[in-house]
């Protein structure tokens, strides 16, 4: 989230798309309803009518997988009716930038496409520069090659009629949504966009989010109270685990993982440190070498950073190591061992049968959980003969959240400290102790016996325990960072000398010379003279009270800033666009309110002022976004399994760069009469993820005991299915049973003149428990993914439904 949960109450219009917030983030809805009480409008766009729709002032249906046409139509509507916030667009976004002559878009493909590689050469998606290297601009936004005009031309095809024919949304509903939301383009109005996996689990997932970002930038909704792009994340600490770099492509703090083309730290820094000629750009990632060196010093405090850089594994450039690829490689037999730590991939991975088979190719698996899972017990699951499965499995029981101490980070980036309330049950242990003890053993073996490249193991900073017990405070201090050498630095206007061991007060003081360590620069400031994540101080200034800002309650990254890009909430003189709900304001030569996005004076100050989007190289909001793998502007492509043979917007039916695999488990059914219905997976209030914790909690299981399938009365009639009957769902990848829920919440769509039916299924079930609960919806889902993130397309695929 750029903003935070309480901030939803500040909004004038809450646009929920790809999320069922009322059921899946129930307490978030307290704040949506509080906004509604104050006169805000709630818009819900979804394939299905849910409890979120029930609270919405405007509800519109769309077919799963048609979000970009829906958004494209909105962008066209905003531009055609001059409803954008012009000053904001000119001053704070790249709308005025002149795009390179070489950039082109023709019939669904951007310039630079290589059909053989199924990838783009992105070099033409760039800007024209003058002799000084500065980007050419046209602040009048009239130049036909400026971003604004290119945007206009791109979305000209997305007229209401074409959009409606693809999304299945009646034009009257489109009109209502567009008109309502575009009204937030007025400077004094703010609109927020809330989304969840309904936007990301598509082969165009990243471009869905890009489309929302473009809309928010056009309407001036970024950085303001009640605005922003807000991902309602699905796990208590999935924000934190992402921040801590548990993904192949990032180290902690969003530092890119090194690859083989960057053999030294100097070359790594040269390739990963952006530079700009724009005089007012803060270009914050220009500081990356400080964060990388400080990270290396946290891992290996006694080594030179150049040496510990060698210790880090290097990826093969251009190779994908993401989730779906991992299981594809596992199926090929390339892994001996596998850790499934606090996770249940046998139920949570798209194409679950493939995943379960892949596990039979392992020599060993270590799995850590509280309850039996489909992963740990895969060898005795449906269709498996244990006598033929070689995999050795270790099940390590772990503590629950209130049996240990440490912090988690919510969607609003609040790092919140938790305390133990009881001892771990039985022999179970906190994950931290399991990791600590396991690595002690591994280190011991390398110390005693040597082995392949032992240095990174032997030298790793493993001072993470006190009296042989994992010590979260010690690690939290390391993540925050401290000085390793005495150093005198300017803090404000005065010099301050820091001694070895002193906590780094903020990432602004991290160094490239090895005098500081910080496990994760964005958490610098979280654990200083005290543990800021444990704070419970509700003191507010009157300005902060107006927008529900609690700067003394826990701590938010970065630097306790609660609303990101808040410099865009004020005009270039520093005056809030929305004085009644100001986030920051420039008063008497300083900022008041939230922690501003950098200490500099407002942008109108030619000498010291900075542009608001400090994490982008040019300091501007990216309407034209050159960094993605599938284009600088969102374009509609059908899901890899879809019910239509044509795309009215271009000749490209599918995303030409989508992540896919070869093999018998990878057959896709588009317009295949055997699999005529669109299917989408979702969640229910009483269950969570694969259901391991909630299926084993009796109160919750009683409320939602088994797998079901929601379908329209029309579809039920066509297939002769009665409400409550058992049905079979099947895709090219597998089949499963569910109880039919025949409901008007689901209705057929008219798409390109045909009637298209959609069904919906929850994905929380698994064969281990309860015995009559059904199995994972992911058995049906395809292993195809977004070309940027690799997130699987589990929100739109094709199935058949029949009576059992």
């Amino acid at each position, binding site marked *: 989230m750029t903003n935070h949960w309480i901030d939803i109450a500040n909004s004038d219009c809450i646009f929920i798309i790809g999320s069922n917030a009322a059921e899946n983030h129930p307490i978030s809805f307290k704040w949506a309803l509080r906004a509604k009480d104050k006169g805000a409008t709630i818009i819900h766009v979804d394939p299905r009518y849910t409890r979120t729709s029930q609270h919405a002032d405007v509800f519109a249906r769309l077919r799963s997988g048609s979000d970009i046409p829906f958004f494209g139509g909105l962008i066209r509507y905003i531009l055609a009716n001059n409803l954008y916030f012009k000053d904001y667009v000119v001053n704070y976004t790249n709308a005025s930038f002149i795009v390179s002559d070489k950039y082109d878009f023709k019939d669904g493909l951007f310039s630079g496409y290589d059909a053989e590689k199924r990838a783009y050469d992105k070099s033409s998606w760039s800007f024209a520069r003058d002799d000084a290297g500065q980007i050419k601009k046209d602040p009048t936004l009239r130049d036909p090659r400026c971003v604004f005009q290119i945007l206009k031309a791109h979305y000209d095809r997305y007229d209401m009629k074409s959009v409606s024919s693809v999304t299945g949304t009646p034009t009257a509903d489109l009109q209502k949504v567009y008109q309502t939301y575009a009204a937030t383009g007025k400077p004094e109005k703010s609109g927020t966009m809330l989304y969840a996996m309904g936007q990301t689990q598509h082969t165009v997932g990243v471009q869905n989010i890009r489309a929302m970002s473009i809309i928010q930038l056009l309407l001036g909704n970024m950085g303001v109270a009640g605005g922003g792009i807000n991902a309602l994340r699905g796990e208590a600490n999935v924000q934190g685990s992402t921040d*801590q770099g548990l993904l192949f492509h990032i180290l902690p703090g969003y530092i890119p993982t090194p690859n083989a083309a960057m053999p030294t730290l100097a070359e790594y820094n040269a390739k990963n440190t952006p530079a700009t000629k724009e005089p007012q750009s803060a270009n914050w990632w220009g500081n990356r070498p400080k964060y990388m060196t400080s990270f290396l010093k946290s891992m290996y405090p006694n080594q030179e950073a150049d040496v510990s850089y060698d210790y880090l594994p290097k990826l093969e450039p251009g190779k994908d190591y993401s989730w779906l690829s991992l299981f594809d490689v596992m199926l090929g037999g*390339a892994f001996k061992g596998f850790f499934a730590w606090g996770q249940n991939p046998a139920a949570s991975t798209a194409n679950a049968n493939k995943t379960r088979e892949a596990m039979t190719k392992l020599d060993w698996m270590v799995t850590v959980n509280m309850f039996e899972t489909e992963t740990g017990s895969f060898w005795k699951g449906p269709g498996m003969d244990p006598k033929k499965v070689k995999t050795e499995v270790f099940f390590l029981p772990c503590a629950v959240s209130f049996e240990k101490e440490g912090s988690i980070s919510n969607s609003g980036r609040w790092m919140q400290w938790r305390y133990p309330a009881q001892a771990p049950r039985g022999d179970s242990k906190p994950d931290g102790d399991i990791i600590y003890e396991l690595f002690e053993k591994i280190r011991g073996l390398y110390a005693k016996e040597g082995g392949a490249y032992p240095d990174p193991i032997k030298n790793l900073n493993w001072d993470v325990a006190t009296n042989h017990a994992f010590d979260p405070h010690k690690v939290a201090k390391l993540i925050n960072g401290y000085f390793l050498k005495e150093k005198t630095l300017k803090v404000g206007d005065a010099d301050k000398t820091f001694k070895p061991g002193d906590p780094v007060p903020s990432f602004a003081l991290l160094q490239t010379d090895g005098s500081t360590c910080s496990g994760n620069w964005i958490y610098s400031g979280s654990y200083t003279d005290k543990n800021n994540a444990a704070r419970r101080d509700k003191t507010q200034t009157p300005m902060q009270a107006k927008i529900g800002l609690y700067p003394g309650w826990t701590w938010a990254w970065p630097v306790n800033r609660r609303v990101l890009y808040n410099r865009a909430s004020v005009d270039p003189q520093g005056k809030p666009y929305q004085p009644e709900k100001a986030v920051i304001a420039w008063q008497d030569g300083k900022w008041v309110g939230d922690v501003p996005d950098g200490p500099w004076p407002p942008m109108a100050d030619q000498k010291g002022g900075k542009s608001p989007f400090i994490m982008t190289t040019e300091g501007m909001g990216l309407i034209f976004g050159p960094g993605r793998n599938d284009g600088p502007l969102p374009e509609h492509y059908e899901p890899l399994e879809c019910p239509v043979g044509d795309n009215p917007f271009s000749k490209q039916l599918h995303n030409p760069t989508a992540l896919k695999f070869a093999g018998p488990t990878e057959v896709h059914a588009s317009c295949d009469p055997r699999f005529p219905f669109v299917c989408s997976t979702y969640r229910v209030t009483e269950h969570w993820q694969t259901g391991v914790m*909630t299926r084993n909690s009796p109160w919750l299981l009683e409320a939602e005991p088994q797998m079901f399938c929601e379908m329209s009365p029309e579809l039920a009639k066509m297939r002769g299915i009665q409400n409550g009957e058992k049905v079979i769902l099947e895709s090219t990848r597998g089949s499963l049973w569910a109880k039919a829920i025949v409901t008007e919440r689901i209705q057929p769509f008219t798409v390109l003149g045909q009637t298209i039916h959609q069904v919906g299924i929850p994905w929380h079930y698994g064969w281990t428990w309860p015995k009559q609960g059904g199995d994972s919806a992911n058995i049906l889902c395809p292993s195809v993914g977004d070309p940027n993130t690799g997130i699987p397309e589990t929100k739109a695929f094709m199935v058949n439904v029949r009576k059992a």
Partner: protein
Amino acid sequence: MEWNRREFLKIASATTAVTAFGGLGFDLRPAYAEGQAAKLKFTKQSTSVCCYCSVGCGLICSTDKDGKGRVVNIEGDPDHPINEGALCPKGASHYQLGNNDRRIQKVLYRAPYSENWEEKSWDWALDRIARKVKEARDGSFVTKDAKGRVVNRCEGIASVGSAAMDNEECWIYQAMLRAMGLSYVEHQARI
């Protein structure tokens, strides 16, 4: 803080009892109030944050002072500015995670081709896992790629997990995996 919460509970017990127990034909208010008071008297309270979705609702855990130190109740924290004491059904069921006979309480081991789990000690399991890790790492370690570039990768082990861990646990987990040279490091955020 502590005093405020107690005050809140007093008020809450007086007001909610009327709506919750009204219409039964007899007055449960004194019993309800006594229950609330007993909770404060016989338990130690600590704060926590919900382990389910990412809203981050505050919890109050009540731990039995005199018994076995078990949690006897978990409810929403009225002081927490996000949830203001409220919880959804999942949040309200936390108690059943701590007191649940379906929890696995022993280290379990399944030998190759076996049809059963066996109970093992931590020491036995961690020793064997460490040995397996070392064998797999030493056997699959790649110093240079096909183009002769230094990569220092362990290619024979993959890991997924976990958003279910605390930040500090996630950090040391990534440190361990990267020190071992793993590249296939993924977790819930990807799916």
